[in-house]
């Protein structure tokens, strides 16, 4: 039968193809099947829309999918990347961005000024409730995009804002646009390096200002990688090389962002070679990490700053003495030595040492362990008999929170419990709803290397990450004054004055400043983790 032979052959070929695919998919060590891709561990991102992503997991994934306007050099100075040039006017209040031409989104759409303007308008528009809306605050017309809810959490809906677009954004031509700020701000270029300032393609919109359904799960960016398939929630996000990308080309062909609920499991996978990079080795495994990983266990500076927030909406923490007492009851050095095994350092200020304007010991006595004074203040203020510290169980915080609680118990003679919320996002949702979750464990990684980034988002009344509801008009004004200052020296002076207010009022108890404590598998090389706790995706490469 002449017709049969090709059919048979086809079956045979398919079988071989399937076999080969099975081999590669199983992640075997067979050199012929190892592709030029890496697996990097993360936690489940809250969101993947640039303007809605203010936590490290989401912004790390987005950094592979998008190409920022500016990046930072070794001295933390901004360098234009997707932008050809960024030029301010004389008083730093109007900035002209000229885009490099020839860049496209991974779906082939050219990147134009409109992509930036539309994305930013969406991010700033109040009813969209974007976590990163704060970043657009300085652009002219931001106020008109917001509206006040007349009865706060009540049933009445907020009225429609006056405008839908920022008056401060003006398209000059397809590759040039102008940003007019509310006032002068010399650090604006640095701010634009943040995730929220990525552009969105036309494909993102269902209609003007409305995101297309499911866009977040299959987001399209202008970066070196593009999504392969969809965001598999709680499992993984796979990205592959974007062939049409014109910028600096990474050395790897793809990245699998593997999502873990548990850092210990991630570490076990790292040792077993199932994950190639872990940016934070859990403290439970620190003592064994050198033995397990040898010189693949590394440390590098990062911008992390950990603290415990005192919710201002809970009456029991209204008294300053209570906050001081709790802060003084914590023996930070002991926790750093015994729990973090020296991988973190006690925080003595409200900003990280990596930014200009940092001063040591601004927190002063409030951050010094002083059990006698703590007990005395607490008794005087008649502090609460029961304390709880809510932390997210998916971030490796249990050990230090338990230790902190034990110190508070021992020093103040009150009960203290650590309550683990399964996910970080659950905890933030509860904090936002002003539920009584007690003290809140939080940390901050900077978005852009300015001192302001440690102040504005965390403590200003409308700050995006002000989960404890701190509000002080003087503070807000000082931060704003620093923002509009002509020179960076002047700005820093204002911000330092703002920091001094924090030291007096203690809305949070600073606990630690962080280092990257990361590890990688034998499969990869040239792994660096930057100040933002992100893996440098342009440097990492596969061995052999």
């Amino acid at each position, binding site marked *: 039968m002449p017709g049969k032979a090709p059919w048979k052959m086809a079956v045979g070929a398919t079988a071989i193809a399937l076999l080969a695919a099975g081999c590669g998919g199983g992640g075997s060590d067979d050199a012929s099947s190892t592709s030029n891709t890496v697996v990097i561990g993360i936690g489940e991102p809250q969101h993947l829309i640039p303007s809605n992503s203010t936590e490290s997991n989401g912004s790390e994934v987005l950094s592979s999918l998008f190409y920022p306007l500016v990046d930072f050099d070794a001295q933390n100075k901004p360098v234009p990347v997707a932008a050809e040039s960024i030029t301010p006017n004389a008083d730093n209040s109007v900035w002209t961005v000229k885009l490099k031409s020839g860049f496209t989104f991974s779906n082939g759409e050219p990147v134009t000024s409109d992509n930036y303007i539309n994305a930013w308008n969406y991010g700033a528009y109040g009813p969209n409730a974007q976590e990163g809306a704060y970043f657009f605050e300085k652009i002219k017309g931001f106020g008109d995009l917001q509206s006040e809810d007349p009865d706060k959490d009540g049933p009445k809906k907020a009225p429609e804002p006056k405008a839908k677009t920022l008056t401060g954004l003006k398209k000059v031509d397809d590759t040039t646009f102008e940003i007019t700020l509310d006032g002068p701000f010399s650090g604006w270029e640095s701010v634009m390096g943040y995730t929220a300032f990525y552009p969105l393609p036309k494909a993102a919109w269902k209609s003007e200002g409305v995101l297309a359904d499911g866009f977040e799960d299959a987001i399209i960016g202008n970066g070196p990688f593009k999504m392969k398939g969809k965001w598999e929630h709680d499992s993984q996000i796979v990205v592959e090389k974007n062939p049409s990308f014109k910028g600096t080309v990474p050395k790897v062909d793809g990245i699998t962002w593997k999502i873990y609920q548990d850092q*210990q499991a991630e570490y076990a996978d790292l040792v077993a070679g199932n994950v190639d990079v872990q940016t934070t080795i859990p403290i*439970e495994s620190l*003592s*064994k990490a050198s033995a397990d990983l040898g010189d693949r266990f590394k440390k590098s500076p990062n911008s992390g700053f950990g603290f415990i927030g005192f919710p201002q909406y809970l009456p029991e923490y209204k008294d300053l003495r209570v906050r001081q007492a709790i802060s003084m009851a914590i*023996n930070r050095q*002991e*926790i750093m030595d*015994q*729990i973090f095994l020296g991988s973190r350092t006690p925080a003595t200020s409200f900003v990280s040492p990596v930014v200009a304007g940092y001063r040591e010991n601004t927190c002063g006595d409030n951050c010094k362990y002083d059990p006698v004074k703590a007990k005395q203040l607490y008794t005087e203020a008649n502090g609460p008999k029961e304390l*709880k510290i*809510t932390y997210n*169980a998916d971030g490796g915080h249990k*050990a230090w929170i*338990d*230790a902190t609680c*034990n*110190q508070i*118990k*021992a020093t103040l003679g009150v*009960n203290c*419990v*650590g*309550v*683990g*919320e*399964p996910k970080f996002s659950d905890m933030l949702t509860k904090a936002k709803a002003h539920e009584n979750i007690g003290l809140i464990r939080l940390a901050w990684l900077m978005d852009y290397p300015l001192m302001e980034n440690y102040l504005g988002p965390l403590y200003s009344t409308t700050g995006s990450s002000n989960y404890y509801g701190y509000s002080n008009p003087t503070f807000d004004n000082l931060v704003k004054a620093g923002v509009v200052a002509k020179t960076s020296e002047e700005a820093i002076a204002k911000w330092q004055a703002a920091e001094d207010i924090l030291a007096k009022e203690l809305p949070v108890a600073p606990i630690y400043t962080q280092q990257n404590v990361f590890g990688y598998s034998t499969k990869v090389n040239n792994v660096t983790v930057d100040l933002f706790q992100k893996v440098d995706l342009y440097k990492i490469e596969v061995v052999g």
Partner: protein
Amino acid sequence: MSDLNTVTAAEAPGGQPNVPHGPVKKDKPRSLAADAWSELRRRKIFWIAIVLVAFILVMSFWPSLFTSADPRACSLSNQYKGPSGSALFGYDFQGCDVYAKVVNGAFNSIRVGVFSTLVAGIIGLIFGMASGYFGGWVDAVLSRFIDIMLGVPFLLAGIVLSRRLSSDPASDGVFAVTLTLGLLSWTSGARVMRSAVISAKQQDYVAAARMLGAKPSRLILQHILPNSIASYIVLLTLLLGINIASEATLSFLGVGLKGDAISWGIMIAEGTQFARTQPWPLVWPAIFLGVTVLAFIMLGDAVRDAFDPKLR
């Protein structure tokens, strides 16, 4: 009527001071329980189990007899210190006294074990009794339901149920775990009860009582229940041990007891994380858990052997 109740009553010591020695006793008709007791008395394993169970019970209700240390007073300065006079088993990662924690953890294990077994016991009793006594379509429906319940994977259902029941992260989870274990562990007991009731129902004395006009309630409570409950109680003793182990399992997985509660399961979970650095905080609660479960299972085994003539 060789009714268990009446015979036990006749044998009750109070009214008969002149029951002397051997020969008289031999002639007396002995009930199943009395028979079992005389069998049990001679078994070493029974006494070992009893001593262990008593020890654990005392420990869980009066931990102060064993230690005066506060299990929640932990200090990092004691991290991983070895055993000493003040802390018999040394200290764990957080600098807590392992011995004090183990001793105080017994209460939660026993509490969850006993109450979940009670819940399971009552549900199983009702189901087994109803399907065995009424038979017919009632039996068919209930038995199929039991089959369905038996088909549910225990651990999966336990995790799901326990999570749902204690969604508040601030609760200690005791109620949720007790209910979870109770709701999931009654099935085998119900089956045993059903077959015991079926065989008791067919006895002549039940038929006689029915002919004399006894109502179903009297039949069940006076005649069938007392004669079918023995094996059920034995099963519950075994179940108690199993439920204690299940509590530790759920706590280990992070869906059982939590927060401030001290539990062997939580201790084991925490100990595991640092086991490569310091194994003892893992080993001690594991030993106590093992011994407790073993004690209840040994007790159940011994009692079952004594009650079942075929195993003698």
